[in-house]
């Protein structure tokens, strides 16, 4: 395929750490094949060269957390045939969404010496809250294999298949010993969407939930189990409020546990 007929792919970045883009750069051999199959016309992380739209496929990393990003993402949407939000930030607001329940101005005032220059929204929200998103690839960072699989499918003319099963399904496929059952480690795998390759359990750690809620998660039951394992309910709530804490299912879970705890306190003699 010549450069002109190859699909034009652009990568944009909102509020994020670039970790997801690095997953693309780290793809090494696959990147060479990728370069043969697509024409990357805009890649904020890899070069400063930018070509104007329209783009066949656009990857957007990061959440919307500054006023100008709202306009920017709308413009990107207009220029894109197929828009993929990549990573926890772009799909659920990311770790920076922790501020959504707090006073964002106060954060800014404590962190920056001249806060009046930092324009920021009170919330950090996912791309889909602002424009239509054709596909979401979750994870902090995204899984390289899942991204390449998605691009290959799109090149073949098909919508990618993104599984919504739990991390456990993959954890067991890989034959890892369950850290929750065999070690009593708190693990969010049962309510988290697969895609990471069960990375944390592979290293003997519980899952942090960075791929966001599975479909649909029973967070109540897992929350109760984690409390039974001896985790204080505040910490259980904090577990759900972590990387993808603004995803509705996890947000509600954390609130419910926090509320339950308040009830407990009231009920306690």
């Amino acid at each position, binding site marked *: 395929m010549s450069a002109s007929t190859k699909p034009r792919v652009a990568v944009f970045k909102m509020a994020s750490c670039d970790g997801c883009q690095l997953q693309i750069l780290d793809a090494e051999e*696959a990147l060479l*094949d*990728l370069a*043969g*199959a697509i024409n990357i016309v805009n890649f904020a992380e890899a070069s400063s060269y930018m070509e104007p739209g329209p783009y066949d496929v656009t990857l957007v990393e990061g959440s919307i957390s500054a006023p100008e990003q709202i306009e920017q993402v709308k413009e990107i949407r207009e220029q894109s045939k197929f828009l993929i939000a990549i990573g926890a930030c772009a799909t659920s607001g990311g770790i920076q969404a922790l501020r959504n329940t707090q006073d964002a101005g106060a954060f800014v005032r404590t962190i920056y010496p001249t806060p009046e220059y930092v324009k920021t929204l009170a919330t950090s929200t996912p791309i889909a809250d602002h424009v239509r998103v054709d596909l979401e690839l979750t994870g902090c960072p995204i899984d390289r294999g899942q991204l*390449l*699989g998605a*691009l*290959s*499918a799109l*090149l*073949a003319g098909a919508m990618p*298949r993104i*599984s*919504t*099963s*739990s991390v*456990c*399904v993959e954890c*067991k*496929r*890989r*034959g*890892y*010993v*369950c850290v*929750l*059952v*065999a*070690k*009593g480690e708190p*693990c969010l*795998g*049962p*309510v988290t969407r697969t895609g990471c390759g069960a990375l944390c359990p592979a290293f*003997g750690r519980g899952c942090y939930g960075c791929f966001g809620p*599975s*479909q*649909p*998660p*029973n967070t*109540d*039951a*897992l929350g*109760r*189990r984690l409390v039974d394992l001896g985790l204080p309910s505040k910490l259980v709530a904090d577990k759900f409020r972590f990387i993808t804490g603004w995803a509705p299912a996890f947000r509600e879970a954390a609130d419910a546990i926090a509320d339950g705890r308040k009830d407990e306190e009231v009920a306690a003699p």
Partner: protein
Amino acid sequence: MRYLDREAFGKLVDALAGAGYDLIGPTVRDGAIVLDHIDGAEDLPSGVGEEQGPGTYRLTSRDDDMVFSWAHGPDAGKRFLFPAREVLCTAKRNDGQLTVECRPGDERPFAFVGLRSCDLHAIAVQDRVFLDADPHYARRRERALFIGVNCAVPGGTCFCTSMGTGPKCTIGFDLALTELPGGFVVEVSSPRGEQMIEVVRSREATEEEVRAAQAVTTEAEGQMGRSLDVADMPELLYRNREHPRWKDVAARCLACGNCTSACPTCFCHDIVEGMSITGDTATRTREWASCFSEEFSHIVGMEIRKSRESRYRQWLTHKFASWIDQFGTSGCVGCGRCITWCPVGIDVTEEITAIRATDGEVEVAEEVMAS
């Protein structure tokens, strides 16, 4: 009955490895006795035991050198005969010409060392599913050797006596061992088993040894962690499709699928298409799937089993009831893995017992209750 001392047993295992078999046996990894590729008898879990309960598993230490004095780890033969992920077909397109190849691979044959009776029964159950339909499974299955072990120490979640599948090996093995302090009483049950035992120095077991071996089984039978009444299956579950217990268990179930993955007979899978980025080669990969996933029952525009209770009901009813109609056997071999490896400790024996105790109860719709 033959008798093998520990040394001879080790040599037998080595001989199998030497003959090119891929040895699969229990070994300690990541806080559990798992079934894995091993190099020889020295990898077996000597002096190790385990404690199992609903949603919990812990290794313990033993002050002897017994290698099979525990029940079973998270995996059974399924992981090897029906691997969790396997490329079934490779498709290519060259100049518009499509070719699809689905030939089984030429891996080394497996020699299983130390499968339990429940595991051997589970393989017999999966045989009914795959043997005639799937050449990949059939090839591995038919080339494999099986050294079974009669259980001495059932786990806290075991109920094989209720299912008629243990604790003594009765089917599916070439050799079956009963471990005694100094060595193994060996039952030889196939021509292949006879050939195997001839490779090393063995002798006829003494009457005393045979009696000791029987006692191991008798004692194990009395130590089952759980029991289950399976009378009136499949009808019991068929007539209780609207039982309120489904909703009750759904409130506890995470729909995580660990039970289906750990179960040695669950066979449901997805076929996943993978495409090379260069666009010329595609793979059709079989992956373990779980009926607990919402996407499992997807058809255009809907998921048939949207609610968790319908998914739990599907699993339990399939396993203990409709399996009988489909394959002429229960889908459960009473190993208790689904109980141990359920992160919230849901117990099939408890769920079925609860349904039996309130047989015929139906979910009362809320409107009716209000009026």
